[in-house]
């Protein structure tokens, strides 16, 4: 996985905050955006996707596409909640393997 991962955990109780930066191997176009949105809907944690100082909710396929994130750029995935670690791992994996 061609990620520059930097997980930071602030584990107070069972909920945690996770963050991971991913360098995109390809443009974040329609298909990976759709994959990302469907995967994101399966988690209960609050999710954020940040690119070029813009933040969107990854469950919104159109908002993700609207970021216009291009190959070689860095996208940061953030999650806060009980399944934050799983969410960040799953979403980062989709971003890192996008074609």
């Amino acid at each position, binding site marked *: 996985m061609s990620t520059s991962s930097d997980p930071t955990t602030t584990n107070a109780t069972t909920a945690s905050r996770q963050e991971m930066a991913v360098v995109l191997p390809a443009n974040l176009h329609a298909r990976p955006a*759709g994959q990302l949105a469907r995967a994101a809907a*399966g988690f209960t944690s609050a999710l954020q996707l940040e690119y070029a100082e813009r933040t969107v909710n990854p469950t*919104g*396929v*159109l908002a993700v*596409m*609207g970021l216009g994130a291009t190959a070689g750029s860095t996208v940061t995935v953030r999650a806060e909640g009980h399944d934050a670690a799983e969410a960040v791992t799953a979403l980062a994996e989709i971003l890192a393997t996008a074609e």
Partner: protein
Amino acid sequence: MSASVGIVLVSHSAELAAGLRLLVEQIGSDTVPLATAGGTEDGRIGTSYDLVLAAIRSVDRGGGVVVLPDLGSSVLTARTVMDDHPRPDVLLVDAPFVEGAVAAVVTAASGADMKTVADAAREARHVHKL
């Protein structure tokens, strides 16, 4: 998980509806019940009451149906069908055709209920593509 919401794409053009269907199946999912009602029954540009009614029935899995019209008489025809066959679990939704269909299918694929799917399609109007 409850039954999937069905999606109906109503267009003046069979090709437009079929093309949009291919697109949303690629971006979203090919497992969401989806039907097109495009053009007239004899293949011309226009809309067909019977095709819309058949499309709604074909995607009804019990989780509700969201109907997305392209414009103009697609709206009128769909509205007539729904006036004649009023059901609380079939919604005609005001949304951009392409963006609304993508958002609706992705949302339905994640197991969302009819209201959530309809809201996702409506909100597509407010998402910037640039």
